């Protein structure tokens, strides 16, 4: 807009500039000064018009005042400066040539109206804005409240519906709120539970550190803790829980509440206890079982210095007979009764009774002074068995064999102790039973070696640890070698060469005697063939024969005849080169079934010798029935002939036996010939063949080969 500086427009501009400069510092407009001045110009023009109008227009003046508020001049200082400016310059710049007095009065009235308009507009604006912001705050609160309500409702649903128990208490322990799951667990109503104090729930089973953890938590030194805790229910039962307690803090981090989350573990715990009980107790008698006994024994053995243990290992004598004759139900009742009686024997602290299985029981005593206590315990046990046990109206005598082990803790393992007790119990049993024996290290060692040999036998056969030595059989008439007895040896990797007395009974016991015997038979016959190939036909008295021992077990083995036939055929050796030696005792009372295989072999041409003749109580009349062609006199008969003159009784006996044998068409072989005088005496008495150190000790097959050659050439 262009205006002459001194024209009306120019004067109006100057007024506006002055006004704008006064106002700008007290406004909070973001307009620039120029923009602001442009905003004021229409207002100044309006004032100018109103000043010179014919009549005074209050409303129009008020509108100008209100427009100031609209231009964001909300600081009342803006009104003051505006009025100052109008008062000083409006008439001066816009009054033109009008009457000064009237103009002044008009200006003054305009100012009054402007002030009123300004005040009214500011008041309305203030009220409107206050209303608007209050409304906004309300709406915002509404939104938040609604959201909070929703989230609270959700959390409440979680709280109420949770399967785990939830409770909130203040830091003094007062219970403030609990959920339904917790009420169910406790079996209490909300009224009873609320207002209770956490500290009231002390339980004898509380873990020792639990209440220390609690104190730390409510002090704010701990954020949470986790324990297994028991609570008493009003019905007298116990509630077991997995309990987690957390500290809740407020926005400033100050501790405020404690939150408990608990899971009912009562049933799980009972189940665990029952499973544990079942895993550690014998179902029949309710006594602790082997695993619990081992646990306790190990604990006793692991106890500190000065602590000892005593153990009684009981095995009932003849229990199998009870089972077999009266049935298992009766046997079980017997065991239950025995268990009850044993239980009453071991009631002192540190004592326990367990059933290891079958009719085997153990009683344990621990602590110092078990040297005396274990004897008393053993006595009580033996006494407990004295009174007969009544089963099905029958009084059963119960006897037992007891092995006792006693010693200091920390020296042996549980397995070693139990083995010693077991061995000792077997000693009591082999001594006739119904007695107790005290463990003895030497007896243990023997038993252990025996056990070791037994278990090593099968692999020994596989590994070829057995070998055979041969002891010549010499014809007493001409001194020629007629054959040899095969004697098996075991070259044990640790124990060296072992004689048959050390392992044949074990092999008999385990049944290994059958394959071992078969092996001896095969080896010996193969050896017989070798001898035969070397100097067959050289001997007038026939081929070298081989004597092989048969154990009772082999005798009753169904494969005996077939195995022997197979071996003979395979090696191409005629049956007459073989003599099987059977002990007299093995044939005592033998029936036809047992004798049948021997008869078959005899019919084939195999000689059968009756070994160790004269040691058993054989029925001489029975001799006739046996398929035997040779009697081997036991060495006890020849021992009396080692000195000179010979024992006349022995002489008579041998003479009689020889006479009897010969009359039955049996040859007689004597064992244990150690001197020439002995040999001569036996020859005179009519014995046919002899073996013994006088001729040769048992040795490798080559030795026999050499002897036979000497014999043949000499």
């Amino acid at each position: 807009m262009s205006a002459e500086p001194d024209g009306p427009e120019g004067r109006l501009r100057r007024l506006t500039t002055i006004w704008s400069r006064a106002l700008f510092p007290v406004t909070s407009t973001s307009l620039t000064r120029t923009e602001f001045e442009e905003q004021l110009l229409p207002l100044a023009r309006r004032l100018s018009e109103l000043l010179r109008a014919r009549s005074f227009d209050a409303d129009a003046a008020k509108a100008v005042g209100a427009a100031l508020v609209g231009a964001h001049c909300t600081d009342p200082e803006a009104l003051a400066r505006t009025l100052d400016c109008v008062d000083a310059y409006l008439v001066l710049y816009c009054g033109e040539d009008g009457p000064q007095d009237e103009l002044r009065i008009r200006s003054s009235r305009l100012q009054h109206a402007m002030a009123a308009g300004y005040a009214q507009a500011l008041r309305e604006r203030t009220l409107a804005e206050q209303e608007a912001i209050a409304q906004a705050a309300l709406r915002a609160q509404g939104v938040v409240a609604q959201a909070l309500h929703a989230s609270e409702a959700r959390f409440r649903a979680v709280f109420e519906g949770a399967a785990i128990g939830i409770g909130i208490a203040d830091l003094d322990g007062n219970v403030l709120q609990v959920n339904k799951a917790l009420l169910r667990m406790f079996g209490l109503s909300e009224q009873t539970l609320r207002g209770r104090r956490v500290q009231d729930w002390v339980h004898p089973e509380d873990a020792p550190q639990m209440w220390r953890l609690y104190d730390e938590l409510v002090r704010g030194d701990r954020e949470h803790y986790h324990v297994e805790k028991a609570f008493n229910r009003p019905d007298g039962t116990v509630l077991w829980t997995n309990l987690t307690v957390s500290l809740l803090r407020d926005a400033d981090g100050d501790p405020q509440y404690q939150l408990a989350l608990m899971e009912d573990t009562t049933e799980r715990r009972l189940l665990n206890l029952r499973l544990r009980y079942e895993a550690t107790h014998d179902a029949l008698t309710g006594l602790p079982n082997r695993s619990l006994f081992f646990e306790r024994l190990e604990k006793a053995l692991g106890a500190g210095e000065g602590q000892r243990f005593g153990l009684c290992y009981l095995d009932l004598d003849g229990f199998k007979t009870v089972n077999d004759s009266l049935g298992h139900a009766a046997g079980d009742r017997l065991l239950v009764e025995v268990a009850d009686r044993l239980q009453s024997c071991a009631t002192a602290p540190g004592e326990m009774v367990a059933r290891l299985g079958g009719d085997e029981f153990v009683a344990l005593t621990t602590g110092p002074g078990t040297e005396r206590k274990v004897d008393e315990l053993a006595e009580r046990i033996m006494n407990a068995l004295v009174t007969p046990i009544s089963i099905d109206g029958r009084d059963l005598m119960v006897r037992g064999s007891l092995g006792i082990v006693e010693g200091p803790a920390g020296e042996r393992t549980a397995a070693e102790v139990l083995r010693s007790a077991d061995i000792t119990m077997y000693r009591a049993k082999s001594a006739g039973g119904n007695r107790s024996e005290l463990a003895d290290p030497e007896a243990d060692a023997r038993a252990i070696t025996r056990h070791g040999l037994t278990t090593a036998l099968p692999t020994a056969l596989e590994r070829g640890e057995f070998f055979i030595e041969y002891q010549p059989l010499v014809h007493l008439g001409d001194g020629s070698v007629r054959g040899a007895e095969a004697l098996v040896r075991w070259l044990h990797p640790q124990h060296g060469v072992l004689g048959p007395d050390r392992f044949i009974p074990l092999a008999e016991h385990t049944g290994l005697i059958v394959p071992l015997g078969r092996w001896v038979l095969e080896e010996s016959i193969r050896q017989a063939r070798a001898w035969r190939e070397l100097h067959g036909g050289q001997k007038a008295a026939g081929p070298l024969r081989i004597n092989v021992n048969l154990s009772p077990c082999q005798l009753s083995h169904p494969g005996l005849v077939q195995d022997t036939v197979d071996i003979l055929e395979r090696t191409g050796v005629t049956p007459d080169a073989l003599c099987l030696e059977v002990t007299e005792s093995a044939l005592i009372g033998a029936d036809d079934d047992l004798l049948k295989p021997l008869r078959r072999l005899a019919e084939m041409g195999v000689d059968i010798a009756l070994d160790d003749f004269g040691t058993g109580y054989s029925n001489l009349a029975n001799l006739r029935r046996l398929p035997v062609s040779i009697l081997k006199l036991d060495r006890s008969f020849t021992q009396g002939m080692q000195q000179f003159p010979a024992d006349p009784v022995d002489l008579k006996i041998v003479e009689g036996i020889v006479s009897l044998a010969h009359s039955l068409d049996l040859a007689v072989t004597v064992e244990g010939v150690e001197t020439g005088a002995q040999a001569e005496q036996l020859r005179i008495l009519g014995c046919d063949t002899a073996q013994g150190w006088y001729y040769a000790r048992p040795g490798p097959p080559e030795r026999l080969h050499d002897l036979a050659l000497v014999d043949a050439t000499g």
Partner: protein
Amino acid sequence: MERPAWAPRSIDISVPSVSRIYDYYLGGSHNFEVDREAARKAMEFMPGLPKIMQANRAFMRRAVRFAAGEGITQFLDVGSGIPTFGNVHEVARAAVPGARVVYVDHDPVAVAHSQAVLAGDDDVDVVAADLRKPQDILSSPPLHRLIDLNRPVALLLVAILHFVEDADDPYGAVAELREALAPGSLLILTHASYEGIPLPAERARGAVDVYKDIRNPLIMRTRDEIARFFEGYDMVEPGLVLMPRWRPDSAPEDEDPYAFSGFAGVGRTA
């Protein structure tokens, strides 16, 4: 109903709010006595506080006009506060008819009021979100409705970053927003600083402490620290300067001394 992520646990109008204090400095009545009390207390230390706010508004106005002049039609104003005269959408529309604006604030009362004021205006909307969670802003429905992130946007961070403590990683938040912006977008920023305040720092600190007391600590940063917010942006002339010196409409010498309290700048994404 889901509780909106921004919603505080409760709204306590007995606690002062920075946006209502700001309104009071600007002569508005969208405030309560607690706000005015805090404002008056701060003004005891720095009587010229309203002039600082005014300078912020004036800069914002110039910068929005500049953006419009650059052809930008979309505006994202984070920390918009209580709508008062001369708002972004008013300034932008004056320059570019049809400009679209999304306001963002975390003060629920400011948001509720904005919604009331802007109701019925389809090209403007308000989002309740926090600058400290840029993804809440970027994924909000109003932003998707009004702003095409494939085209340049003017992002306004006017007088807001000095309310974000370092622990809340303001640089990370600014970078995250930058990542979302198309090339040619502008960052329009002001930030409080002891540099430029026409008072000894100890005295200014009194006003700063008032904000600390109302749990909205005011973080004064140095010019270098403020410049780091423009990482990844090319500075628009004249760079980061005291507020009245940014492309002034009138001689800066005429401005109130308090108007120089704080830096302003505009950057452009490559």
